[in-house]
């Protein structure tokens, strides 16, 4: 039998550990947050004054004051377009197949382990693979297409894993109900699985894309460090069929490469440009992550179970 004092002692001890852990936890969190704040503060301090309209509408230049990020921003956007256009259908498709269609056996287990492993492969490895496959074997050259496909390969595992997580969160009673009223697998996927898991899928997609937009190593591997002072061909043309895919073959530069390039300049003014470009990149990533959170909230509200 425990007496009252012993119980009180036990509770006190428990609370003490509680407080100690809370302090450790707070400390851990503060380190992360403070580092980020210092980093952002440094970027703002160095680069904020360079952020004006001409910075966004100028091409890179040897004069720091005249240099801008137009070609890098357009390049980043187009590369992301290709990445999204390939990674989303393939990633979501693969995940739906694995969850809803594939039979559970050692092959699917092997695939599952591999996909999870691929998410942890260093990005430079994807760059090397892409250099051999896209740039040389398929002869896409150092183009927007090669870069977009490379980044798509890189974020494919992220999208597959998060889509599967989202699909798994759907209660099996929904599936059973659909089958009970005679729905086929495809009808189930189309009318129930995809709409209900859309929030989770979109979050995964956007986290993947946010990672891809800041990626430098694989792009440097395939595209080298290149300075571009022109824009790719417009996707719209005046004559039939009014759409052109020439821009996919165009050489390109992206934001992180532009930053890297400016950082290696001797003039201090270029370091400020790099900081300003860094700010723009951080804001772009922030907007993407913000969109992910917003979409998740919106889709969650619609789900009623």
């Amino acid at each position, binding site marked *: 039998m425990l007496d009252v004092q012993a119980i009180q002692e036990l509770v006190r001890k428990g609370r003490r550990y509680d407080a100690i852990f809370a302090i450790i936890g707070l400390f851990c969190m503060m380190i992360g947050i403070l580092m980020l704040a210092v980093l952002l503060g440094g970027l703002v301090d160095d680069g904020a004054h360079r952020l004006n309209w001409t910075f966004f509408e100028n*091409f890179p*230049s*040897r004069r720091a004051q005249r240099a801008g990020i137009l070609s890098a921003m357009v390049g980043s956007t187009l590369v992301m377009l290709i990445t999204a*256009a*390939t990674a*989303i*259908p393939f990633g*979501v*498709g693969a995940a739906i197949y694995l969850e809803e269609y594939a039979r559970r056996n050692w092959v699917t287990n092997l695939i599952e382990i591999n996909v999870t492993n691929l998410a942890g492969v260093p990005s430079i490895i994807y760059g090397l693979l892409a250099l051999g496959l896209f740039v040389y074997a398929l002869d*896409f050259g150092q183009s927007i*297409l090669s870069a977009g496909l490379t980044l798509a390969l890189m974020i494919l595992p992220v999208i597959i894993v998060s889509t599967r997580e989202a699909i798994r969160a759907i209660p099996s009673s929904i599936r059973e109900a659909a089958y009970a009223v005679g729905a086929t697998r495809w009808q189930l996927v*189309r*009318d129930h699985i*995809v*709409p209900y898991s*859309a929030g989770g*899928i979109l979050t995964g997609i956007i986290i993947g894309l946010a990672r891809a937009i800041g990626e430098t190593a694989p792009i440097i591997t395939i595209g*080298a*460090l*290149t*300075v*571009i*002072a*022109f824009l*790719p*061909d417009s996707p719209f043309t005046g004559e039939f069929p009014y*759409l*052109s*895919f*020439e821009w*996919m*073959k*165009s*050489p390109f530069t992206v934001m992180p490469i532009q930053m890297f*390039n400016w*950082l*290696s*300049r*001797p*003039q*201090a003014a270029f370091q400020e440009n790099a900081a300003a470009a860094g700010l723009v990149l951080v804001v772009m990533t922030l907007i993407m992550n913000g969109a992910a959170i917003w979409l998740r909230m919106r889709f969650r509200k619609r789900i009623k179970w």
Partner: protein
Amino acid sequence: MNMMNMMKRWVVGLALATVVSGVHAAAVIEIDGSSTVYPITEAVAEEYQVAMGGARVTVGISGTGGGFKRFCRGEIDIANASRPILKEEMIACAQAGIRYYELPIAYDALTVVVSKSNTFVDQLTIDELKRMWEPAAAQKITNWNQVRPTFPKLPLKLAGAGADSGTFDYWTEAVMKRSKASRGDYQASEDDNVTVQYVSRDKGALGYLGMAYFEENAEKLRAVPIVPPHSTNGAASGAANGAKKGVVPSAKTVNNGTYQPLSRPLFIYVKEKSLQRPEIKTFVEFFLTEGPALAAEVGYVELPANAYTLARQNLKNRKIGSGFAGVAEIGLTVEQLLVRERKR
């Protein structure tokens, strides 16, 4: 379903893209190579694109070796080089049937720098530099007083170019007389700004970098005057070796040939086949006319006017190949080089 429609559209788009991907984009002038030559080429490309409205030039930075690799695979039109083409690169080009013009475009001076706080280094001879940098010095020469007994007892810390750069090749060739012979225990970087940071913070540090980087950081660094080796000015300049005066790198000392052996010519290599395209012909012409002033603007030394005329003549007379026999030579003037027989 919305999601499905989006997917469908993308799949169709992708299929279309694959169909048309065989067509090549509008004429782009592709340049790649040395990070040292890059600022000059970039400036020329920038002005050219302004002057020619709608012209497209890409300038890559893969290093001299990386640039030649792509050049000899036929991927690019012009290679930037901070050293002459090497024998194995000439062979690779010959095997691929790539013929080229070698055009010197400016001088660079490798500058030996110490921190502003370092006041004891008055000048250095090439022999002293060799003592610091040769492979045998690794882990042994670690103090300034081992370089010259009159120097204070202070740890010697070194910084310089990484092994992939043409700067490293030229430095080892000029100081050690053997390409790629250098001690390994120094702060090596492909980015000269790293060398600037490293040297400026440490009284006992010494590094080498391109003159443009020194000039931009002249408030943090000091350029060490370099005493030329005896063979270049002979006995005339003084009886004892110690009496010879060091030379500071500048446009003047580079051009009159006294800043030796650390001043070096920079080149562009133009593919003969590309030169048949009108836009590349105009670009190279533009390079030879506007290049000198632009090179000076970005911190390099322009060649004597005569050199650009000779380069034009070489283009006109179709003097294909390299003036070097695939070996880097030190202390050659650009005029001597331009009138030389070409080798392929």
